[in-house]
């Protein structure tokens, strides 16, 4: 999954800073958790889906409770060749409830007898909207989150095994999550119980912290990759790296640009924490 993000970063990265010799990868079974506010999460997932379909030829299933109204400005303005055939590789599915999402994912094995290629990328945008329901106890929310990601993982493993027989790319999973207090200034040290469960199952984490300068939120995010499933070649003679940082800048027209951050700067400390607060 991280290799797709790597293509996204290079494709939409600034020309000045583009780093051509770095290669991100992950263990084959690794899935990715994107943690940030819902708008940047969705933009990143859409770019990932379009890149996977148009540049890597992957068939993508994109699950989200809200209808996609338009393509990201970044894609419209860029030189990405958006052929209709490429876009046809992405299927948007709009389950409104938890039950609909589980049934949609659970039914994917029924595609096997068909001759069409199997999905190679399963994306769930805004998993929190399926997990957090008023009056649902914390323990139930944790179990619900585990059910969704375990089913996604098991389904991807099944599709991967079937794909290997037909020499298709293996199936990966990416899930986005907006922590509960995002944008509400809650207790940054309180652990997010749902996030802790999601991390058990998704081995690569992509954090998006909004940058705050002089007390004002900027249209910039610090993107930090971490997790046991992540491997970065091109730094330190290809040895394993625990994390990697990028600056994501939203231009006035809404386009996103990715700039590699080689080392943490002073400013990185002035971020709005969007996770459970266990990182500083």
């Amino acid at each position, binding site marked *: 999954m991280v290799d797709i993000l790597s293509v996204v970063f290079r494709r939409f990265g600034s020309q000045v800073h583009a780093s051509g010799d770095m290669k991100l990868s992950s263990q084959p079974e690794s899935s990715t958790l994107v943690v940030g506010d819902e708008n940047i999460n969705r933009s990143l997932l859409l770019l990932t889906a379009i890149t996977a379909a148009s540049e890597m030829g992957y068939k993508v299933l994109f699950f989200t409770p809200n209808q996609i109204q338009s393509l990201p400005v970044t894609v419209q303005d860029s030189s990405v060749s958006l052929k209709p055939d490429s876009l046809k590789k992405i299927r948007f599915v709009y389950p409104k409830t938890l039950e609909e999402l589980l*049934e949609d994912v*659970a039914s994917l*094995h*029924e595609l096997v007898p068909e001759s069409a290629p199997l999905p190679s990328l399963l994306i769930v945008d805004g998993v929190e909207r399926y997990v957090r329901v008023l009056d649902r106890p914390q*323990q139930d929310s*944790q179990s619900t989150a585990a059910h969704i990601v375990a*089913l996604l*993982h*098991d389904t991807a493993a099944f599709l991967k095994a079937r794909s290997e027989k037909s020499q298709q790319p293996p199936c990966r999973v990416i899930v986005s999550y907006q922590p509960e207090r995002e944008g509400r200034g809650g207790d940054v040290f309180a652990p997010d119980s749902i996030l802790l469960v999601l991390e058990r*199952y998704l081995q690569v984490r992509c954090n998006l912290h909004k940058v705050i300068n002089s007390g004002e939120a900027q249209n910039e995010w610090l993107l930090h990759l971490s997790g046991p499933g992540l491997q970065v070649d091109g730094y330190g003679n290809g040895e394993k790296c625990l994390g990697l940082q990028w600056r994501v800048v939203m231009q006035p027209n809404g386009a996103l640009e990715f700039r590699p951050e080689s080392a943490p700067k002073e400013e990185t400390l002035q971020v709005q924490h969007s996770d459970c607060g266990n990182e500083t």
Partner: protein
Amino acid sequence: MASCLPAVAEQLLKDLQKTYSEKSQIPDELLIALRFIFGSCTLQALDLVDQRAVTCVSSPSGRVVFQVLGGSGRLYTCYTSCHYCPCPAFSFSVLRRNESLVCKHILAAYLCQAMGLCQQEQVPDQQMTLILSGRAELDP
């Protein structure tokens, strides 16, 4: 990955598979090792094995899942490649408290698989979808 077994547990299950296929019983030292690695749910899981409570369900698509019949008569669905069980013990001891590797239902599925004691059942693909999504547990 946290949702899979550590290497020591995997090795223990391999030892169990080999020993049980040769002797058709579990020696005391393996029982002690199982109790040490998996904790207090081991005895309850062995009870479920004795009751042949684990069924390996498959469908024409090739999808496979375990169903474990609990003591209350409820069926618990456990996936084959990833740890999840809808039982309260999994939510509390595994997910919330992080005290146990698995619940008794998942351990029973592992044990039955290693000992070759799973019941086998074939279902249509549509029924498999209901089982995987958890609907079959709610609408038997």
